[in-house]
């Protein structure tokens, strides 16, 4: 059955034929981050897909993955395209290297999970928090509920660890 939700006022729909995304987001609603692991080669993949990008294997199982990692790169949006984001400028779009499976199966690969920088409560980060985050920042996953049985993953600074000095774009 389809999942319907809303995020920042934007309507979200996981179609009832979109089986991989349905499962992914249902786990997210349980605060349980799971990715597909291939039954043939054992590798995890992101985002959800219909076969294994490394061995074309069709069979998989949903495997719990720790939602922790480091910012690999980011964009800092100052002009929103989608009206829903206008009240939240500037906002960060993070690409986060998960600690799990980093450097596998080749050195330059990682499970790079997209998300915005948010507060621990899940709201888009205020400007003073945006300034503290860049490449190298350690982040942990939080979930933002978007509907019944439907949540999306987001990223917040991991305050439980010593933060490295982040690399940020040189011009403020």
């Amino acid at each position, binding site marked *: 059955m389809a999942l319907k939700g809303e995020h920042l006022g934007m309507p*979200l729909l996981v179609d009832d034929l979109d089986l991989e995304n349905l499962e992914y987001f249902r786990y997210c609603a349980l605060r349980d981050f799971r990715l597909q692991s291939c039954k043939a080669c054992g590798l995890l993949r992101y*985002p959800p897909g219909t076969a294994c990008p490394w061995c074309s294997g069709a069979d998989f199982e949903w495997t719990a993955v720790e939602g922790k990692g480091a910012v690999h790169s980011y*964009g*800092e949006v100052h002009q929103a*395209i989608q009206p829903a984001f206008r009240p939240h400028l500037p906002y960060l779009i993070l690409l986060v290297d998960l600690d799990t499976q980093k450097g596998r199966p080749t050195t330059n*690969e990682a499970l790079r999970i997209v998300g915005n920088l948010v507060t621990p409560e899940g709201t888009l980060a205020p400007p003073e928090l945006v300034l503290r985050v860049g490449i190298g920042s350690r982040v942990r996953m939080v979930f933002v509920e978007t509907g019944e049985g439907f949540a999306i993953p987001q990223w917040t600074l991991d305050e439980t660890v010593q933060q490295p000095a982040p690399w940020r774009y040189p011009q403020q």
Partner: protein
Amino acid sequence: MTVQGDFDASTPRFLRDKYAIVGVGETTYTRGSGRTTRALGTWAVRNAMADAGIKASEIDGMLSYSNNDSTPSPLIAGDLGIRLNFYMDVYGGGSSTEALIGIAIGVIEAGMCKTVAIFRAMNGFSQVRIGGTGARAAAPISGDGLHSRVYGWGSAGQSFSQSFMRHMYDYGTTPEQLAMVKVIHSEHASNNPKAYYKQRVSVDDVLNSRFVVKPLHLLDCCVETDNATAIIVTGVERAYDYRQTPARILSVAGRCCKPRIDMHYQHGPISTVGGYYAKDILWPNAGLGPEDIDLTGAYDAFTFTTMLQLEDYGFCTKGAGGDYVSNGTMRLGGRRPNNTSGGHLCEGYTHGMNMVIENVRQLRGDVDDYCPAAPDGKREHTFDYRERGCRQVSNVGVTANLGWAMPGTGSAMVMRKG
């Protein structure tokens, strides 16, 4: 030239130098064309036909590309009285031009038709804006958008920003170096009567313009315009029947991709682009390497896209792109000028075709700049590249176009003077 990669995707011994571009044409570049994309497409194809001196009855193939923002071939062909033996209208934006030239060569080679007109018609400012603004920005989010647009990650600038930023981190590339791409292309545009933005700008102008999405200032981003462009491709056995010196095609690569093109960031380095793979098709097929190229057309949707492609096609070493784009090489009068029309940053946005048109005219030695015409009507190039002057490069023998769709996908073409 060392051939890299372990694949052989080509047939250079059969098709190298056997096809040519015999006509090019465009509409004016405007914001607010006041015309349908059908009218614009017809206008551009008609101009390309006039340029070639080719009759409607001599064209029997048509190709176009769009993001569902244009008019398909049958309406343009019908309006111009062209009876088609082949047509196809494909989905796609940047990188389509070179890819469709490859398809045109293929269908002619297969005997399906003999001469193909390729066009791109768009009201990219007044109707369907490339940035995805307007009604599309508020559309419900589903499918793969649940992992992108839900995060406000949708426009080209937003989607590419992580590759651009990582390049600065990995190689120490500076905002000032990137700004030079805009500065140089604005110099070129100042010598192009067709260019939408003819004003020369400085590094400070770029750095002081507002941020759209870091690392992109407004002036790091291309212009959105309304326009159509067209080119005509045929075999060399026919190419010399027409009015212009043909631009002969040595090789093409089309929509060549990095691994994991569903979300290319899963495979790094993320500042590596499709050209890293396309170069292994492009150069062996052409029988030439980057050092042989006189003039480049490296797609400038953003200042960064020019740099990343020049690096990965081997015009400089990886990571040295910041220096390459800022040391004067790309200027008119430099070792290897880039986008002499002003490109997407200044001339107008056509999803890549205007950069091919420019290189065709450069190869003919007959670029449409401000130089005076001789009594016979032919332009007398001064090679004085000051503002409102010349933009013809002297002795252009071989050009390269490097087309960009996104960091993970690119197309390319090498042409020589006919």
